[in-house]
Each structure stands twice: as C-alpha cells, then as structure tokens.
C-alpha cells in the first residue's frame, strides 16, 4: 500500500504541487496523465525524495513519513522499499546490464554477491534480455536500456514501482513491446504508479487514472470513466488532443 497525502511543492516560489493525494493499493496500477508542466514528474520525484516536498506525508507499507521531518534514514528506507524507472533510463554507464541490476542489490541492500547475480539474471531473463547481460548501456538500444531499467526495478522486489513516462524516449516501434512487458508485470501483480501519455495502455492496464492539471489531481477514477465520460472540462480538453495517432496497439 502506497499513499501520498497533501503533497505541496514550490520551486523558487512557484507552486508546482498544490496538495496532491494519491493512493495505490497493493497489486494496483495507477496511471497519471496530464499536460506538460502539470507536475507529474515532480509528484513522482517527491514520492521517493529525489525532490523534497514542502509539505505532506508519504506512506510505503507500514512506514509513514512526514516530508518535513524526514531524516536520512527515513529517506533511505523509503527508497529501499521502492523502485524508479526513468524516462531517460538513467542506467549506470560504468556497469554492464547485469551489473546495473545486481549493484542495486549488493550495495544498498547488502544482498550477497552470488545471490544478487542470480536474482539479477532472473530479472534480465524476465524482461527478455538475458543475452545482453554483459553489455554496457552504451552498447544497448533505447528499448534494451529501458528493459534493464525495468529489470533493475523488479529485482529489488519493491512495494511499488514509480515509472515516469517509461516509453516516451523510445522509437515508436519499440514502445509497444515495452508497454506489453509492463502489462505482463501488472498482470503478475506488480504495484505501479506510472506517468504515461499512452492512453490505450492506461485504459487496459490501470485500475485507476489520475488527471493532473496545475499541480492538482483534477479528476480520478477507473480508466473507462475518465476516458469515456470525463466530468471536468479540463480533462475533456486534454483528452481531445489525443488522437488515435498517439495510441499503440498492445
């Protein structure tokens, strides 16, 4: 179970998050949609303290943290219970695919080296790139790099995975296969909070969709309601911009 309550965040006096609430139940997928600049990335980054929110509470599992009072240990605890998949992959460029995954187990989580390698290999197999285990990120395509990013996220058995537009840096022909992989993870019971512009994916995979605008969750609900019968005018205006061109069949 993951929760954020009353999250507020300003950058240099500029309010970016205006009191956001999010709940993701175990095994659920929650998709966040919204226009550019609405604060989606900032919200995810506040969830694992890559960005420190000004106000609010974050809960992962049984751990509640008041962002104002969070100390180093609280932050490490939250980060070690969660995982993040970045838009630009953010793989360690001095580590192989296998090293990228096993490093996250051995160094912060103190998993013995052999066991870490075994778990990492399992994760790479699961995302379909076991044959690239010894390649460096620079030797991998964008799609393969994002698979490593996802392998890293599942290998640490997190309570929740945060994904910030995991497919938007990819070539169109690769987007579908990554979305399919994420769908498989969801079906296998992974808990995910994902920022995405892939409406069809959100429709098929998400249990709940949040529409954000100007630092607020304006509307939320099951995907069919949000996409078919949006109540708010702002949601409707946003959805009108998505033509079928932006959708990928999965």
């Amino acid at each position, binding site marked *: 179970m993951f929760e954020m309550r009353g999250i507020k965040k300003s950058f240099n006096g500029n309010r970016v998050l205006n009191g956001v609430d999010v709940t993701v139940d175990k095994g659920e997928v929650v998709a966040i949609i919204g226009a550019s600049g609405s604060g989606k990335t900032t919200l995810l980054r506040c969830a694992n303290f890559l960005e420190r929110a000004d106000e609010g509470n974050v809960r992962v599992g049984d751990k509640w943290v008041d962002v104002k009072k969070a100390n180093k240990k609280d932050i*490490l605890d939250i980060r070690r219970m969660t995982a993040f998949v*970045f838009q630009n992959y*953010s793989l360690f460029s001095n580590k192989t695919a296998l090293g990228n995954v096993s490093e996250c187990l051995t160094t*912060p*989580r103190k998993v013995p080296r052999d066991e870490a390698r075994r778990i990492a290999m399992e994760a790479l197999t699961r995302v379909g790139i076991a044959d690239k285990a010894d390649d*460096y990120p620079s030797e991998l395509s964008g799609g393969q790099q994002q698979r490593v990013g996802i392998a890293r996220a599942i290998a640490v058995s997190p309570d929740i995975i945060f994904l910030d537009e995991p497919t938007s840096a990819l070539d169109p022909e690769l987007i579908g296969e990554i979305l399919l992989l994420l769908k498989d993870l969801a079906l296998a019971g992974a808990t995910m909070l994902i920022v995405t512009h892939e409406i069809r994916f959100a429709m098929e995979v998400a249990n709940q969709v949040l529409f954000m605008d100007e630092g607020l969750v304006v509307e939320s609900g099951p995907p069919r309601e949000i996409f078919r019968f949006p109540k708010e005018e702002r949601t409707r205006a946003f959805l009108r911009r998505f033509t079928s061109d932006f959708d990928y069949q999965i």
Partner: protein
Amino acid sequence: MNFSLGFALTAMVESLKGVPVTLFLIVATFGLALPISFSMALARVYKIFPLDPLIRLYVSFVRGTPMLAHLFFFYNLLPMVIRKAMFGLGLNGNLVYDLNPVWLALFVLLLNYLTFMSENFRAAILSIQKDQFEGAYAFGFTKAQAYRRIIIPQAMSTALPALSNSAIGILKSTSVVFVIGVRDVTANAKQVAATSYRYLEAYVDILIIYLVICFLITRIFQLAESRIRRR
C-alpha cells in the same frame, strides 16, 4: 663537432643511475596526489567553505609562479621551519640537515601537481550527468555508496587522459630538481658531462631516457583506459 659514441655509453650508464630517483618522484607525487587532489576537487565541486576559496587561492598562486622558484623558496624556508619545530618538540632539529633533498622535491612537485590534478578531477566530476547520481539515489544508495560504486569509477575513466598528461608533466618537472641537489637523471648526466667537458653526449642520453619513460607512462595509461571500459 664530434660525437663520441663511447662517451655517450659511459654517460648513459651514469645517467641511468638516476632513474630510480626520477621514477620514485613520479610515482610518489602521482600516488599521493590522486586521493588528495580528488578530495580537493570534491571540496570545489560542492563549494565547501572555507576549503573552496582556499583551494582556489592556492591554485591561482601556484599556477602563477614557476616551480623553480618554489624549489628555491622551500629549500631555504622549510628546513629552517622544521628545525625550529623539532626543537620546539624537544627533538634534535639539526637532523633536518641530514634530510635527503628528494623529500623537498617531492613536496614541491606535489604542491604543483595537486593543482593540475584537482582541476582534472573537477572537470571529470562536473562532466558526470546528474542522472548517474539519481539512478543510484532512487535505488537507496547513500551518497558515499553512490560515489564509491558509480561516480568515482566514472570520474576516474573520464579523467584518465588528462591524468596521463599530468603524469608526463610530473616527469618533465622532475628534471629541474637537481637545483636543490637531488641526484636524478639530469643531475647524474650533468655531473658526468662536467667532469669530462663533453656535454652533447650526456644531454642526448637524458633526452633518450626521458623519452623512454614518457613512452612507458603513456602505455600504462593506455592500458588503464582500455581496462576501464565505459560508454
């Protein structure tokens, strides 16, 4: 002008006796400078007060003055200071006159090359993209863990070409430490030349020796670069 191959050989044998001292100075300067200059680079990157302004001052001072002047200055100043300090501690300060000048040379070389190498590292650390830190932090690395496992290895391999230049710079700079009486390659060559009034042969010899050492340093760094593969 006549060039005596025989004397060139004699002078070579003499000059080679200075190689251990020259190599010691290079290895010791470089080895000590590595961790210190990396720490200096961190202090500058993170603008740690008062280290950051002090280091900046130190770098601009050392960069703006010749090493030869440092050698003369510290040759006159340091033994005096150390002698006083030792007497102050109840030790026999006169022992300082037995000090091998090679230590003073090491000190001055270090003083100079810390500035170059800290700039090498600073540039390398600044070139590392923010996402390398964030990838680590997001997975629960502490700052120290992120540095040890991700940032330092990358900074090292990025800095290698520049460090290689600094190492060659150290090699070249060792050739002036004879002015404070260090028995390095150049000092040995000068001596054998002076006793027989044949300078050309001896100076050809030291050029060859420096060239070979320079080649070796370059090779070592090339090997290191191919070992630490990245990107």
